[in-house]
Every structure is written in structure tokens, then in C-alpha cells.
């Protein structure tokens, strides 16, 4: 047996650190040493590399699909770069037609389908974050789930949701958003096919929504629809 010297002590200590057995104080002290001690870092890396083989027996389990959207939202909750161009698009010349297609059905909460599994998501955010809405779309259920995370309609006004299909310049109304922050919207099948690669936007409208079939007020937030 070799006598226990500093190196042996560090070998065990690095192993304890890798196993996460050190208490908070000892762990912090060890991490402070790690910063300027490459040899100690190598000891930890060796342990990590060996111990990770023990995880071979851990069976992979698919996480729920909604978690990916949640992570994207956490990380990328900044205004999408396309906001400015969408704003120009909506405020530009393309407001003419787009009548008649819009059908909004707000489902009462008791009818929300279980196991909502979105395949697309969009983050609609104002440039100053004064309005942030997360939309997720489950094609199987034909449901667009709206989660208004920040902001609300201006006094005496409403928020109206629009879809601009990929390659189209014409916004199609998905209806006026209700007062509650979370809403499920049943999308007509004809629109469902247009949502992938499209853009969702929210405009400021008079009560009852735009009467022209196109946005009439400010475009408050917009974001591209991305697949999850």
C-alpha cells in the first residue's frame, strides 16, 4: 500500500466531486481550486469519463413534446428578427382581400383536448416586449393554443390574430383574442395547411375586430411559425 499523500487525497476528492457527494461548502472550495489547477480538472474529467459508463444501463425515455417548445421559449424569447419586415408587410399594400376565410372558434376550457402535442410554435413579441404571445399548433387536433405571457389590449381596443401563409402577402384573420391569457383556437382545415412556415401577427383593432378583413390598426407583435 502506498501512503496516502496529497495526490491520493485529490484522487478521492475528485471522485467525490464527480459523484456529487461533497456538501455545498466543500464543493464550492473544490471548484475554486479547479479554476487554476489543470491536473485536478484532469482527475475530475477521468472520473466523469469512467463513471458515465454506468449510465449505459439507463433506458432513454422520450420527453413530452411540449417540453421542447418550452425550452425554445425560455431561450429564444427575444423578438424575432423578421418582426420589422412583417410589420412592413402588414402595414403595406397587401391589405386588400383576405375576406371571408376567418373562422374563430374559442373552445370552452372543459373541451380542451387532452394530450395536446404541438408540432409548430411561434413567438409573437413586440420589439420592446410589451406584448408577448406564445402560439403552438397541434395539427392532429387542429388546435392553435395561445398563451399571452405579457401585455394586453389597449384600453377600449382588442387584439386580433392574423396568419400570413408562407409565400403569401395577404394576412388572414384568425379572430379576436379573448380577454383571458390562455385560449385554444380551432383552426379550419383550410387554414391549418397554411400555418407551417407562415407568420403569425397581432394587430390593434376596434372592439369586435377589423371590419375590413385586413389589419387596420398598429401591428403590435409578430413572429414566424417554426416546427418543433
Amino acid at each position, binding site marked *: 500500500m502506498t501512503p496516502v499523500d496529497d495526490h491520493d487525497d485529490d484522487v*478521492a476528492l475528485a471522485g467525490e466531486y464527480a459523484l*456529487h*457527494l461533497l456538501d455545498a461548502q466543500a464543493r464550492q472550495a473544490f471548484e475554486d481550486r479547479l479554476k487554476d489547477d489543470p491536473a485536478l480538472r484532469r482527475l475530475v474529467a477521468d472520473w466523469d469519463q*469512467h463513471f*458515465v459508463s454506468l449510465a449505459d444501463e439507463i433506458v432513454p425515455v*422520450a420527453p413530452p413534446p411540449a*417540453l*421542447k417548445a418550452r425550452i425554445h421559449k425560455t431561450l*429564444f424569447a427575444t423578438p424575432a428578427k423578421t418582426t420589422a419586415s412583417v410589420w412592413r408587410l402588414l402595414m403595406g399594400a397587401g391589405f386588400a382581400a383576405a375576406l371571408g376565410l376567418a373562422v374563430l372558434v374559442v373552445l370552452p376550457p372543459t373541451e380542451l383536448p387532452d394530450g395536446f402535442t404541438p408540432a409548430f410554435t411561434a413567438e409573437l413579441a413586440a420589439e420592446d416586449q410589451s406584448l408577448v404571445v406564445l402560439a403552438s399548433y397541434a395539427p392532429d387536433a387542429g388546435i392553435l393554443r395561445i398563451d399571452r405571457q405579457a401585455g394586453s389590449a389597449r384600453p377600449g381596443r382588442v387584439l386580433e390574430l392574423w396568419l400570413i401563409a408562407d409565400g403569401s402577402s395577404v394576412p388572414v384573420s384568425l379572430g379576436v383574442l379573448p380577454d383571458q391569457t390562455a385560449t385554444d383556437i380551432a383552426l379550419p382545415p383550410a387554414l391549418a395547411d397554411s400555418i407551417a412556415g407562415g407568420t403569425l401577427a397581432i394587430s390593434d383593432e376596434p372592439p369586435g375586430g377589423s371590419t375590413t378583413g385586413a389589419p387596420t390598426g398598429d401591428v403590435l407583435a409578430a413572429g414566424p411559425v417554426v416546427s418543433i
Partner: protein
Amino acid sequence: MTTRQDVEKMIAQVGLGDRAAFSSLYDATSAKLFGVCLRILNDRAEAEDALQDAFVRIWQKAGSYAANGYSPMTWLITLTRNLAIDKLRTRKEGSVDIDEVHDLSDAGPTPEAAAVASSERSQIDGCLDELDADRADAVRGAYLEGHSYNELAARHDVPLNTMRTWLRRSLAKLKECLSR
């Protein structure tokens, strides 16, 4: 089939802020990492939170991955496991009583679970076999279940300091075996 090189490349691209690569990395690795979170936390909601923390950390740290010398899955699993154990420790703070310790003991790893480890035995498994069975179990319990010294001592019915000594000696022996 996603190879080690694929995962390495994805991490490198994520390090450059590539969201599509982040999405691919998630698709390729989230099931294994979620399995790790579930194993440690044994609770779906907490495991989901831990996995979210892990991928946020991966997004933030991917840029410095190349410098750390870890193989890609080792880096991902180690990072995820550490976050899951942090969550486990927070949950258990001040709440360890005898009943709970006994429950934990009942939920310990079974020999069958350890045996699933696959036909291709790793070096660490070979070296753990050279330890007394209960000491090897303690090391496995610490790694795979995230057990603390307190829990290990309770499970093996030895005083805390004895467990500490056991484990440190076991680690020294393991290192000697792994370096052969």
C-alpha cells in the same frame, strides 16, 4: 443512427448560436438525458424541469465545449446529471427523516437493473467487481441515484463517517484498477 461525430458537430454549431443545430441536438439526445433525469429524480415533473435546465445550460455552454476535452455524450450526461442532483438536493433539504430513508432504501437499484448494463462491460464495471459488493453498490447508488453520504449511510446501515471512509477507499482502489 447518430454518431459521436454527429453529436460533436451539433454541439460545435450550437456553440455558434445555431438554433437548428440545437433542435437536432435535442432530438438526438433528449431521450437519453431525460432518462438520466428520471433515474435521479424519480418524478416526471421535476425531471422535465431538470431537462429544461440542462438544455438551457447546453445552449449557454456549448461554445466552451471543445476546450474541455470531454467526449460529447459524457459532457451532456455529466452536465444533466449534476443539474438533476442539484434539484434532488434542494428537494430533500431538511426533509430527511427515518421513514423517508427507508423508502429510499426500498427503491434502491435492483441487481437486475445493474445487470441490464449490456454485454459489453465497461472498465468501471470490471473494477467495481473487484470491490466488496456493498461498496460497489454505494458507488453505483451515488452515481445512478444521486444518493448523498447521509442516504448511503442509512441504506447500508453504517455511521456517516464509516461510509465516508468506505467510499474514499473504494475510490482510491477504483483509481488504481482503472489505471492498470
